[in-house]
């Protein structure tokens, strides 16, 4: 009797989870397979054309100056964004961990940009990073002028070659609260005895942070690196809303969108999307395995 109802429950649990599993199977894995198929086809234009062309779209991409620029832009953006977000987030977390009054207030304040859409962030920063000069100077440049910090005035995202680094500023603004939260949770988990012992031994605050806290926080740093790194590979809406579709600020996600839906180069668009997926998968799959493994070990 008991086994019978157990069996019933077992089947019921499989039946209940099946719609979700099927949905993920089709809409994630099935669609990825479909994209792969498009990426090895010569589909160009409104009507699907699945004529097999092998890896031609991929080969063409690596020879394409626009895609080379995309890779370079992505790397530059990633470097500025990831380093900036981690450094600022860590700094904020350490400050908030000193037991000062008003800690909760500051923490909530640092984190609020996370609730906002990249589009909103981009539209506002588009005007903050206004490159106009002379009488028409505005935005942050005007603020710098007012503070007599004229040396900081710059052309932001319109700076030749380095514009993409300026796009990382609003991205840092938006995401550093997130690394702050990760680090703060990590700092709170460090047992007080460890640092107290070092203090008794005469270690300075700097030494404690450098030789005890930072190494203990390395799993947090690793998570932050992976999460932020995969986000920056996908960066899309923020650039669109700050600058629209500009060749100089192009990244793979924008190239894919434009070439597919504006240019109807479906084969090429799909190839970009699969390369994007592979670059993300290289980071994320080991991360998922590592996280689930540490979970079972505990």
């Amino acid at each position: 009797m008991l086994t019978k109802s157990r069996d019933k429950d077992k089947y019921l649990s499989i039946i209940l989870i099946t719609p979700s599993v099927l949905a993920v199977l089709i809409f994630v894995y099935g669609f990825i397979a479909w994209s792969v198929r498009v990426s090895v086809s010569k589909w160009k234009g409104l009507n699907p054309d699945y004529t097999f062309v092998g890896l031609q779209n991929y080969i063409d991409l690596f020879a394409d100056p626009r895609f080379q620029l995309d890779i370079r832009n992505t790397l530059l953006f990633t470097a500025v964004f990831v380093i900036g977000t981690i450094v600022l987030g860590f700094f904020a977390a350490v400050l908030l961990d000193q037991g000062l009054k008003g800690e909760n207030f500051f923490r909530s304040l640092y984190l609020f940009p996370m609730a906002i859409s990249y589009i909103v962030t981009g539209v506002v920063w588009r005007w903050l990073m206004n490159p106009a000069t002379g009488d028409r100077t505005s935005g942050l440049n005007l603020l710098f002028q007012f503070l007599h910090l004229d040396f900081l005035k710059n052309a932001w995202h319109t700076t030749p070659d380095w514009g993409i680094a300026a796009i990382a500023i609003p991205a840092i603004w938006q995401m550093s609260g997130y690394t702050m939260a990760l680090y703060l949770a990590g700092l709170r988990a460090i047992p007080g005895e460890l640092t107290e012992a070092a203090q008794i031994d005469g270690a300075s605050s700097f030494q404690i942070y450098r030789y005890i806290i930072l190494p203990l926080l390395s799993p947090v740093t690793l998570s932050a690196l992976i999460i932020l790194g995969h986000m920056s590979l996908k960066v899309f809406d923020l650039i669109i809303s700050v600058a629209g579709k500009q060749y100089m600020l192009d990244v793979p996600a924008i190239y894919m969108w434009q070439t597919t839906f504006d240019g109807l180069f479906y084969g090429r668009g799909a190839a970009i999307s699969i390369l994007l997926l592979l670059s993300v998968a290289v980071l994320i799959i080991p991360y998922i395995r590592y996280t689930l493994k540490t979970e079972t070990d505990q």
Partner: protein
Amino acid sequence: MKIAAPIQWKKNLLYIPLGLLALFYLIPLYVMLVTGFKSFAEVDLTTMWNLPKTIAFDNFIEAFDNLAPHMWNSLIMVIPAAVISSVLGSLNGFILAKWKFKYADLIFPFILFGMFIPYQSILIPLVQFMNAAHITGIPGLILAHVIYGIPITTLTFRNYYASLPQELLEAAKIDGADMLGIYWHILLPISAPSFVVVLIWQFTSAWNDFLFAVVLTNNKTWPVTVALNNMAGSQIISWNVQMAASLLAALPPLLLYIMLGKYFLRGLLAGSLKG
């Protein structure tokens, strides 16, 4: 860790960097607010940092006139998307955490990966599928957010249910409760905090989404993000109205954050698999 008993005034110096950081985060909000409340006559890019001389609502009124239908689109899209994906996530989480069948431990990472993929890699098939199935506009967007929301909602609930002691279920099983009974009478009543976390998370990410919206909707069904982006890209609508519109578009998730920040933070940490 606290730095070794510093003299109080020295500790107070820390408010300087804390305050500077706060200013950095507040700059965009400040600009949105002071611009929004200026009259059209007073608005000028070269005085954008000045406080308004008189409070006016010109910018908000024009922004609202432009944005209201799209904010409505966002709202009727986001609510079902958040609710449906949360319910699915709760069921999946329960089964994966407490009712493990043979391949449960394989299925979980398989679902989880879906949360990290660049959506470009499914975008062409998604658009083809939606068009072929004649699911366009807002229903299509709801479907996309429900399905691509399954990984994070499943993760959040699975981690929560996995943290509950197994004895809780065993006792109920001995009393003769079946699976659905256990879910309904034991787990669901204590799931409210996780539902809040997941609902806020899904509401915010669907409200803030741009990529799905831009390929699945047209100018009638645009949600607020696409409408705002097009406003900013057009030459017709001036920057001051864009600022006011940005604030309006940010307001619903911002209000949720202000009211329920604690739950928002939990969703955030869950999203990095650290919940």
